[in-house]
Every structure is written in structure tokens, then in C-alpha cells.
């Protein structure tokens, strides 16, 4: 099953964003804060020792890194030096080197035997002098001072989503540390940051909430069912039908897609409400043949409701349509088979209840005249309804990914702290694509993007640099030796070139990992861009450079999905209107109006509550429409028969069961499920209420 949000994007953007996210997706950060750096040494050592059991430790050192770089530094030149050499200013370069040697401020990082002009040393020093935004190193960890406080950042890579139990333990340990660390002198505090914490906490929370919700829902279903049927005989057919529906629906999407998205199954839980409805009606009927027509109408209309999703360009919407459709058909077939086996049988629940209310046959008018007191009540209800629906004008759509996730306060505090100190954390990236790393590096150099090529130039450029240095040696070597005493060897430079794909040093690999990612058979080089300024779009046509903003991409994605859902909802309503007209002819308004009213009223309440409408809210209206139509169909079909009281009770219990089950979702800690639960509960309430009012009017 696919769980990645980025998998919802089209393949080109998906690969880029997924690659960018994967690079830091497994990174867990602990930020220690204290009055001075020395006070952070012991806590840092404690946390590292604890983490060592699960996370690989970086064992690199700068000495080893320099030792790995030195024999491959033959082609490394700073931009300034390269420009001087290209301009023929060999004397200036030699003088700069001699000054650096004699002034005593610069010590060679690469042996002067191989690098007499200190070009590699200059390059490495220049690279190290890049803006690190206030961070330096202490025993391998980034440290900084800000506003009188000292910080030390512990970074742990390589964690997987399956490590959620360990990560939750780390979180507990950090909280426990904070509880006592404030007593230390000086006090120390630990903050946490990184996707693994959020994912692990969300996983643990969702497991807990699913267990609780499942238990409570089960109790509600059983209690209401027993109240309705005075028996538990409904349980077995309900479980069998539900289980069959889910198995068939799941198998269908897996066969069709191989790896369907988890959102399909999140939405698919709404199938429960639809299944419960059919089973309850079948259980309550004396003979399932009596409800064959309304059940068939309910199935057809609900399928018509979801049908437009099957033709969407958005894969996950097609998956949802197939899942729901397969599940519904299986439920209907299961009900027909299970309850049709014994043929006509006495209903255990009748017990004379149906005798309490004599149904009024439908006359040509089919409506009772409103008495004055009822008229005023009707006017009051209508006014209230209009007021509620007016809230729909306050609806604001939103595709901000922040709407879909609210972090734990402690995690949110940690992320805020991390980004406060790490202003360089980029929201935008320049991405260069190539068939190979070298092709991408050359593309980057040609486009002038300061990415990986600013650290490790392409091999082509390094060869050019080598040729320039050979010229430097030839033209100024003798004079340089005379001035400094440092010998300049004749002949070719013995040092090799630096290829990012051949790097084995752990510190260098850690440095370039975020900047160079493989995506299928392509290589992507990603470099952070400043928030303001910089390229907004491709540097030039065919340059292979694009600007990617992950948050904006996700917002666009959900915005596109929401627009698609609204469009399909409109098509669904039109299709349903046509279908209802075909099925019920002149009476189709009696079926359509309650559902339309329910949708409007739900939108109105959401609007008055200031809810920002997202893609997930839009999806809920498909379910509300489907279930609402079921309520209307059963109510109206029953008004012409003696089964009205029974049907009313079944519809009421079905509504209560579905509304309470979905309503419980509104109590979860996840904004998506909260939004869906609230919308569904509201929508089902109005659907039931409007269908009941309509049925009463016709009586």
C-alpha cells in the first residue's frame, strides 16, 4: 500500500519531491539548548550513546576527509583563481600563494609537495568559509550561539518508519530529560525535530485511537442493532456482509493498481455506513423481495453518485470509486443471497408494531393540508433552513497542507526552534536533471546554479583546471621556488580528479547526499534557493533547471484535487437528477430535493463554523449524497405500504449507527479524519432530517 503523499503527484514532480523528502525523511534531530557549550557536552554524549543501538554513527573525521580529498584535488580551483588563470594572470596567482605562505595566516591543508601554490588549500578553505549561517562544529556536531544561548544539534540518519516504537521511546526519553534537566546548573533543554518523530507519534496515536474507536463503534452497532431487532441475529449477517465487501473491494483495487494509496482505504471506511444501511433493511424486512426494488434503487443511485469519480484523471479518486463500487455491489449481492435463501419468513421483530400506524395510501395529491399551527412551524423551519444555508457563502476553500496535520505541541515547539536557528532551511530548490551525475554537473555549471558543482566541479571542468595549473607551474614555477623555497615539480600533476560517485569518505558522502539524488534512471541535483529572489522558473529553455517548492507543490496538488472533486460532485448531482427522473418520473423532485437540501445545509453549517473546505470535505459529500438518497428512497417507498413504521425505525437506527460511527472520527487527533467525521455526521443528520420531513409531508 502506498502511504507517501508525494505519490499522489504526477510522475515528474513526484520523483523530484520524493527524492528531496527521502533525503531528510529518515533524519531525526535533537537540539540541545543551554547557557554555554560545555554544559551540553555530557547530554550530547548521553543521547548519542542511547541512539547508537539503532542508528549508524558517522565515524568520519576532518583529517580522514582531507586525506581522502588530497590525492583527488588536482582539479579543484576557486572561481576567483580560475578566472585569474583564464585571464592569463599567472603571476598574480603565484604572488597570492607566496603571500599566503609567508604571511603565516594560512597553513597548507594539502601537502605543498603536491600543491605548491596552495590552490587546493585555497579551494577547501574557501569552501569551508561559505556561509554556514552561524553554525560551527564541536566534536562533530553543529553548534551555534544566538541571543546569549548556546545550541548543539545532534543529527541521526537512517531511521525507518518501522522504527516507530524506538522513536517514541526516544521522545519519552527526551521529555524525561527535560523534566530533570531544568534542575541542572546551568539548566539544559532538549528540543526534537524531524519527520520520523511526527510519523512515529502519529502511528502510535492512530493505533490507539483506531482501537478505541473500533471498540466504541462496535458497541454502538450492537446496542442499536439489539434495540432495533430485539435480537443479536443481525450480527452475523452484518459481519459477513461487511467483511465480504471489504475483502472484495480491497482485492479489486489491489488487482487494478498493484499499490493503491492509503487514502483510498481511509475514505473506504465510509463503506461501513452504506453496508449497515442495506443489512438493517434486509434484516427488518419480512421478505427480502419486498425491499428488492428500494434496495436496487438505493444501489443504483449510490453507484451513480460515485460513478463520475471512476472517470477522473486523478488516480486516487478512481481508486476510491472502484473500492466503493465493488464494496457496494458485494454488499447488495450478499444481502440478496443471505436473506433470500429462506424465501419468505416471518419477521421476528414485527410484534404488532406495524399495526400501530396505518399507512395512508398515496392519493393523487398525497399531501395533507397544513393547519395554521403547522404552517407557522413550517415557516419557522424554512427560515431556519435558509439561515443555515446562508452559511455556505462563508465557505473558504483551502489547500494548505497544514490543514491536514497538526503536530503535537512539543514537536511543534522543536520544529519552530530548529527553523528559528536554521533560517537557511530552504523552502525552494533549484533542481537540475541529467542522465548521469556528470551531465547534471555540467548542466548546473552552464546554468550558473551554485549547487553541487560549486563544491565538486564536473570532471570536464576539473580537467580544464588541471591544464590551467600546469600552465601556472610552467610559467611561474622557478620564480616561486626562488621566493619561497617550495619546490615546484615539473611534469603532470600526480593527483587525480574528484568524482562524486567514487566518494567513500562518510563526511563527504553526508555533505553531498542531500544535493544529489537518483530518481529512476535520472540524476537530480538539488540546491537550496533563497526565499526571495533567485530564479523563479527555468533559466533557459532546455537548460534542465527547474525551481521546486515542495509546500507549493503540495498545495497545488490538493487544490487540483479539490477542484476535481467539486467538478465531479456537480456531474454526480446532474447524473443523479437524470437517474431519479428516469426512475421516479414526476416524483423525482421528492427524491432529489431532500438530498440537495441536506448538502446545502451541511455546507451552511460548515460555513458558519468557519471551516475551510478541503479536498477531504468534498469527498464526504459523495457519501452523504449516497446515504441521503438511501434514506429518502426507503422512506418514500415505504409510505405507500404498511411497512412505514418499521422502515422509519430502520432508517433511524441506520442513521444513528452511521452518524455515531462517523461522528466518533470527529474526536480523533488528526485533522483529516476530524474533518471527514464532522462533515459526514452533519451531512447524515441533515439527510435523515430532510428525508423524514419529506416523507411526513407526503403522508
Amino acid at each position, binding site marked *: 500500500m502506498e502511504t507517501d503523499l508525494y505519490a499522489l503527484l504526477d510522475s515528474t514532480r513526484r520523483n523530484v519531491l520524493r527524492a528531496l523528502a527521502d533525503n531528510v525523511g529518515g533524519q531525526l534531530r535533537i537540539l540541545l539548548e543551554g547557557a554555554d557549550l560545555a554544559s551540553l557536552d555530557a547530554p550530547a554524549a548521553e543521547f548519542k550513546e542511547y541512539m547508537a543501538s539503532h542508528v549508524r554513527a558517522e565515524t568520519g573525521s576532518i583529517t580522514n576527509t582531507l586525506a581522502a580529498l588530497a590525492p583527488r584535488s588536482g582539479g579543484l580551483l576557486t572561481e576567483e583563481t580560475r578566472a585569474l588563470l583564464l585571464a592569463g594572470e599567472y603571476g598574480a596567482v603565484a604572488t*597570492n600563494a607566496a603571500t599566503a*605562505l609567508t604571511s603565516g595566516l594560512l*597553513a597548507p591543508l594539502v601537502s605543498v609537495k603536491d600543491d605548491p601554490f596552495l590552490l587546493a588549500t585555497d579551494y577547501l578553505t574557501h569552501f569551508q568559509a561559505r556561509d554556514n549561517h552561524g553554525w560551527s562544529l*564541536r566534536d562533530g556536531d553543529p553548534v551555534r550561539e544566538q541571543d546569549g544561548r548556546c545550541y548543539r544539534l545532534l543529527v541521526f540518519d537512517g531511521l525507518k518508519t518501522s522504527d516507530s516504537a524506538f522513536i517514541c521511546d526516544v521522545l519519552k526519553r527526551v521529555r524525561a530529560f527535560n523534566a530533570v534537566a531544568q534542575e541542572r546548573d546551568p539548566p539544559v533543554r532538549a528540543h526534537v525535530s524531524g519527520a520520523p518523530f511526527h510519523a512515529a507519534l502519529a502511528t502510535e496515536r492512530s493505533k490507539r485511537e483506531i482501537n478505541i474507536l473500533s471498540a466504541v463503534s462496535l458497541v454502538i452497532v450492537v446496542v442499536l442493532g439489539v434495540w432495533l431487532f430485539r435480537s443479536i441475529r443481525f450480527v452475523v449477517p452484518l459481519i459477513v456482509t461487511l467483511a465480504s465487501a471489504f475483502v472484495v473491494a480491497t482485492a479489486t483495487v489491489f488487482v487494478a493498481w498493484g499499490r493503491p494509496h492509503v487514502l483510498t482505504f481511509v475514505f473506504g471506511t465510509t463503506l461501513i455506513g452504506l453496508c449497515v444501511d442495506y443489512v438493517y433493511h434486509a434484516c427488518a424486512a419480512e421478505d427480502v423481495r419486498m425491499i428488492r426494488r428500494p434496495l436496487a434503487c438505493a444501489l443504483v443511485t449510490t453507484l451513480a453518485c460515485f460513478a463520475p469519480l471512476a472517470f477522473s484523471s486523478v488516480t486516487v479518486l478512481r481508486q476510491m470509486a472502484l473500492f466503493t463500487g465493488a464494496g457496494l455491489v458485494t454488499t447488495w449481492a450478499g444481502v440478496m443471497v443471505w436473506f433470500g435463501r429462506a424465501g419468505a419468513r416471518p419477521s421476528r421483530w414485527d410484534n404488532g408494531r406495524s399495526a400501530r400506524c396505518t399507512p395512508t395510501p398515496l392519493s393523487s395529491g398525497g399531501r395533507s393540508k397544513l393547519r395554521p399551527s403547522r404552517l407557522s412551524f413550517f415557516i419557522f423551519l424554512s427560515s431556519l433552513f435558509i439561515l443555515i444555508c446562508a452559511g455556505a457563502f462563508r465557505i473558504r476553500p483551502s489547500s494548505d497542507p497544514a490543514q491536514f496535520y497538526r503536530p503535537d505541541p512539543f514537536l511543534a515547539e522543536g520544529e519552530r526552534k530548529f527553523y528559528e536557528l536554521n533560517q537557511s532551511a530552504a523552502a525552494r530548490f533549484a533542481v537540475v536533471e541529467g542522465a548521469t551525475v556528470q551531465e547534471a554537473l555540467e548542466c548546473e555549471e552552464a546554468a550558473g546554479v551554485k549547487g553541487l558543482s560549486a563544491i565538486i566541479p564536473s570532471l570536464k571542468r576539473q580537467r580544464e583546471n588541471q591544464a590551467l595549473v600546469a600552465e601556472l607551474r610552467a610559467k611561474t614555477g622557478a620564480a616561486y621556488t626562488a621566493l619561497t*623555497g617550495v619546490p615546484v615539480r615539473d611534469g603532470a600533476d600526480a593527483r587525480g580528479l574528484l568524482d562524486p560517485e567514487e566518494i567513500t569518505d562518510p563526511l563527504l558522502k553526508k555533505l553531498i547526499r542531500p544535493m544529489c539524488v537518483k530518481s529512476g534512471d535520472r540524476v537530480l541535483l538539488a540546491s537550496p534557493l533563497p526565499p526571495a529572489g533567485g530564479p523563479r522558473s527555468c533559466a533557459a529553455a532546455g537548460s534542465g533547471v527547474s525551481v521546486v517548492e515542495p509546500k507549493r507543490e503540495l498545495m497545488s496538488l490538493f487544490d487540483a484535487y479539490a477542484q476535481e472533486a467539486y467538478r465531479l460532485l456537480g456531474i454526480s448531482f446532474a447524473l443523479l437528477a437524470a437517474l431519479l427522473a428516469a426512475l421516479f418520473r414526476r416524483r423525482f423532485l421528492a427524491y432529489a430535493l431532500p438530498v440537495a437540501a441536506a448538502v446545502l445545509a451541511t455546507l451552511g453549517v460548515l460555513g458558519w463554523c468557519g471551516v475551510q473546505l478541503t479536498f477531504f470535505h468534498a469527498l464526504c459529500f459523495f457519501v452523504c449524497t449516497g446515504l441521503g438518497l438511501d434514506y429518502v428512497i426507503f422512506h418514500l417507498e415505504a409510505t405507500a405500504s404498511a411497512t412505514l413504521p418499521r422502515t422509519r425505525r430502520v432508517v433511524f437506527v441506520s442513521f444513528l449507527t452511521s452518524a455515531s460511527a462517523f461522528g466518533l472520527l470527529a474526536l480523533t487527533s488528526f485533522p483529516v479524519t476530524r474533518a471527514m467525521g464532522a462533515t459526514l455526521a452533519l451531512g447524515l443528520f441533515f439527510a435523515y432530517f430532510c428525508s423524514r420531513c419529506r416523507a411526513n409531508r407526503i403522508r
Partner: protein
Amino acid sequence: MYKWCVVFLASWGAALWGVAAPPGMAERMFAALPAQATGTFVQRKILADVEVTITSSGTFSIVKDKSFEWKTLKPLPSTFTATPDSYTMTANGKTSTHALSELKLSAGLRSLVRGDLSALGDVFDVTEAEGRLTLVPKTRELREFVKRATLEGTDFPTRFALDYVTGDRLEIDLVQSR
């Protein structure tokens, strides 16, 4: 990596410049410091791998809490000037000025460069024997480049030496002008 190259400036420059001081030799030196000091230096850089010693000479000038100037006259002229907030390098007709905040220094080194000798203990293990102050780096990063620094002198530092892990060595002899 620039850190180590400022260490030698920080350790003895701060001793001449600073406000606070650890006890012992550095304290005595600090107490004897005039408000202004000038002098000459002879610097030897010994490159171990090519067995070459590069000698340079020049002048220095310190105004306590205000400025520090290191002027190399031979073999190639260059001038390094530092104030509490910035440093300037002039060589080969070019001058570049940078804020001290741009230097990649740890908090401890930054304090040292600013003259706070109380930070010496954060960055170095300090020992004193027979009129010689020996500083051994504490942090892993400094230890990757610098083995040891030593400072000799009574009322005024007369010799500073820096041993690099590569085997290279820097020696500076200072003579204060009277």
C-alpha cells in the same frame, strides 16, 4: 578551518588585548600590558614535508581594546588588521574586510578573539611551566589541525609557537619597542 589560523592571533593577541584573564602567567602578562604596544617580529614557518623554512619579518601594533595590526614587510608585504568587530587583509594591492561574525569560530574561540580570556579554558587545556604557557586543543575540530600552541615571556610575550598535526610548525619571535 580558519579557526586554527586565528588561534595564534587569539591566544596571544587576546592576552595583549583582552579584558579578563585566567590566573598565572597570562594574568601577569596582562597586568603588565601597556595601553599601546608596538614591536617587530620574525616569523618562521617550517614545512615538514618539503623540509623548507619560510622566514618573514615585519611589525606589529596593538592598541588595547581597539585594534591590532600585523604588518609583514619581507619577503612579501601584507597587512592584517583586526578590531573588535572586523578584520582586514591587504595584500598584492587588494584589500578585503570581513566582519568577525563571519569567521567560522566556535563560541569559545569567538570569545577568545574578542579578548575574553576566560574562554581559554573552554577551548584549550592550559598548563604553565617554567615561564611557558602550553595550550592543547580540547575540541575534536581544533585537534584535527593543531597539536599544541606555546607562549613564552615574562612581562610581554616573546615567543609564540604553533605545532600542526601535519608536522608543520610556526614560530614567531616578538620584540617590543621601548
